């Protein structure tokens, strides 16, 4: 999309429209109004409640998902704009019933308490390693600061990220 202005898509709405999203590799057809956020499409229309709503204002990070592999706030993303893009949620992180190493590390390091921000923290944490933003604690602290943990498990979240980074052979 960068640098290239595509022809504007035809105007749709305001009534419910047929939209097909690609969620965790699966095509998911649904009928939603264009004003429906990606977060509400996931939670209220597709039954994928792993992505959490904390503020609905883009401030807490509980709704963090990946769109085409990059971190995105699902509460500030309109679902219809995700057509043709790959959306990954916490439900798509572990394959075949086996926990992703970051999920296992969050349990091992006790990196959560109430667990409500946890899916967003984990989606950020995995992305952080891919982005190369976990070289040291200073980097981890800054690049994880879009995800609020009100239980304040932050030191343990850093420990979990370090553990996965170091097990993978560092950056």
């Amino acid at each position, binding site marked *: 999309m960068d640098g290239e202005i595509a022809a504007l898509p035809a105007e749709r709405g305001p009534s419910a429209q047929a939209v097909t999203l690609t969620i965790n590799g699966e095509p998911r057809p649904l009928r939603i109004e264009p004003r429906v956020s990606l977060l509400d499409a996931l939670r209220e229309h597709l039954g994928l409640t792993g992505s959490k709503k904390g503020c609905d204002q883009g401030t807490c990070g509980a709704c963090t998902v990946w769109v085409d592999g990059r971190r995105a706030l699902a509460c500030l993303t309109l679902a219809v704009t995700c057509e043709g893009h790959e959306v990954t949620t916490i439900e798509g992180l572990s394959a075949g019933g086996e926990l992703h190493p970051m999920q296992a590390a969050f349990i091992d390091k006790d990196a959560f308490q109430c667990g409500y921000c*946890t899916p967003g923290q984990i989606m950020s944490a995995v992305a952080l390693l891919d982005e190369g933003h976990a070289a040291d604690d200073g980097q981890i602290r800054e690049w994880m600061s879009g995800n609020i943990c009100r*239980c304040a498990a932050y*030191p343990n979240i850093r420990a979990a990220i370090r553990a996965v980074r170091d097990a993978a052979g560092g950056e």
Partner: protein
Amino acid sequence: MSGVIGQAVSRIDGPAKVTGSAHYSGEIALPGLAYAEIVGARVASGRITSIDTAQAEDAEGVAGILTHLNMPKVNNVPLLPSLIGGPAPGETFFPMQDDVVHYAGQPVAIVVADGLEQAQHAATLVQISYAETPSITTIDQGRADAYEPEKIFGGLMPAQTRRGNVEDGFAAADLLIDAPFRFAANHHNPIEALTTTAVWDGDQLTLYDSCQGIKAVQLTVAALLGLSPSKIRVLTRYVGGAFGAKAMVWPHVTLTALAAQYVRRPVRLALPRGQMFTSCGHREEQEQHIELGATSDGKLTAIRHHKISITSPFDDWAEPAFGVASQLYACPGFEGVHRLVRGNTMTPTFTRGPGEAVGVFTLECAMDELASELGIDPIELRLRNITDVDPNTGHPWSSYGLRECFERGARRFGWAGRNPQPRSERHGNWLIGTGMATAGYPIAFFMHTQRARAHLYADGTAIVQTATQEFGTGTSTVMTQVAADGLGIGLRDVRFEFGDTDLPNAGSPVGSNGAMMVSAAVHNAATAVRDQLITLAVSDSQSPLHGADPAGVVVAGGRMTLAGDANTGETYSSLMQRHIMSDAEAIGSWDPPPLDTPHGLLTFGAQFARVAVDADLGIIRVRHMVGAFAPGRVLNPKTARSQLMGGMLWGMSQALLEGTHMDTRHGRWANASLGDYLVPVNADAPDVDVELIEVEDHVTGPLGVKGVGEIGQVGAAAAIANAVYHATGYRVRELPIAVEHLLAHLPSGPASAAAGAQPDLT
């Protein structure tokens, strides 16, 4: 008996939470579900002169709208008996019963629609006109009419605490400290907003509610609606944080039930973040004024500690500021007085470390001033004043450990050899300071009988049940451990079942009492089943244990053996199969000791902090925190450490970040969002070390558990504020401490330049 208590077991709800499969209250799929949106009052005081819902009703998808014109009347329910085991409304006021507006954000209409977006949009179409009257929303505005209530804290506590004669104490003092403090209001802001889903089936109501106590929700809604509690079932397993916001039962829960009844469909209400500031209470704006009298060798002779705070038009609510603050030190004279201002806010409520987090801050900052004035090390000053008995009653502590907290905390932190001189350490442009404070938190025995059921199957596995819920404290993990230990079976052989009011009664985990009271009931249920089977075995001529003393039988791994003779015994399974028993079951119950139990009841700790303050900009960074706590028996050090660490970071946040500020022109909170109300993010959080000091306690239930939920916060803010003084030489007496408090008092600032008294270390 299996030794699983005290192990650092990982959370059993971990896999569900890290995969997103743990369902919270707003995540229950229901056919025909409709969505509710509350319209909050735009003004802080006045009357509704007209309310026009026509346009909203015509909007697409709208199923129904309730206002004061068509809302059913509910019963009046007092704040008491509250969380001691009865209905627990957050305020005695219930909205939409008439046209009066008491506070901004007060619910004035509730809109229900097929879709969430439809409800949100239709709520904006409700046209309301108000006759606005002047509002009072800050202490300053209402100070002239301040009054002394008889009781505070929902009627739970007296408004005054006195012992000895303070005037005599001040007369005997060589030195006086006189320090006024101001505190901004705080909002809990759990990341999961308060959320209720209500489903009627005939006259039976099921609620999925984001709460701290499902039984309290059941009883409160029953009382308000005039229903039998047997008609109401509350189902709540996981709660996305609470911190006091979900302890009391706020009006939106019952409003959702009434809305569901009105539209004859299941209805879900999830409060938007902005409404979280006007729907579930807050820590009230307050001022505290403390005076200390002390002898020249640092012995306290008198403490006068006064608080003024703002409450709602309907309830005398203040967090109790002088519980712990009156108990930590053996000072002969103490006077604590709460005064209140009536204002146009909702009733304040419990916020983590209610009262004590602020009251102990005041005391411990004043103690630091006293230490500075006397030239005594802050720990040494405290050691000269601590007491082996509760100074209010003369009763010995049920267990103590405070000296060990000072000692081990100081060692872990590296306190020894500290230069007490302010501004004595500088690294580059950072002024470095260290501070400490004492921590304490009450053990409150105000709950009713706690019950749990243990059900052991003949294959040696068990289900253990009680009507509690998991809001991040780790209760589902530690209760699994307690059940496994009591039954003498493996952790994997126990399923702990919770989150349903149909299960045996458990109180609301508040005041750090959850682990203590629920573990007592679970332990008693588990050991009752164990003892049934041991009794059966020793009386069974076919059992290898026949004739043995039941007290001499131990159980581990589901096998009963003689203590000291692991070869003589048999498994539960073999015994039960021989007796053709499919299962064994017992209800365990626990009653707290009487309120006048002859023991001092506090949990103790010590807090240490190192801060760095930018010498030009006044930016404060907390570099390191150490907390040492003596919380009785530690059921699971992994979850206990996390909870204490979280509490300490709440203390950091209390010191440096959190404040809700009132726009007095409109009587509305000015910063009602997570963008404007600052809470810590990862970059704000230093590394935290927690030292656990186990002390034996024979008063607080069969396992000797005290509590870890709140003491982590108490004293942490004071340690930071004292460290900021040590770094800068300036005492900020207002929370949260901000850059602007310090700017004029930094090395290059006007105060320092004019005084010329501070060493220039640049």
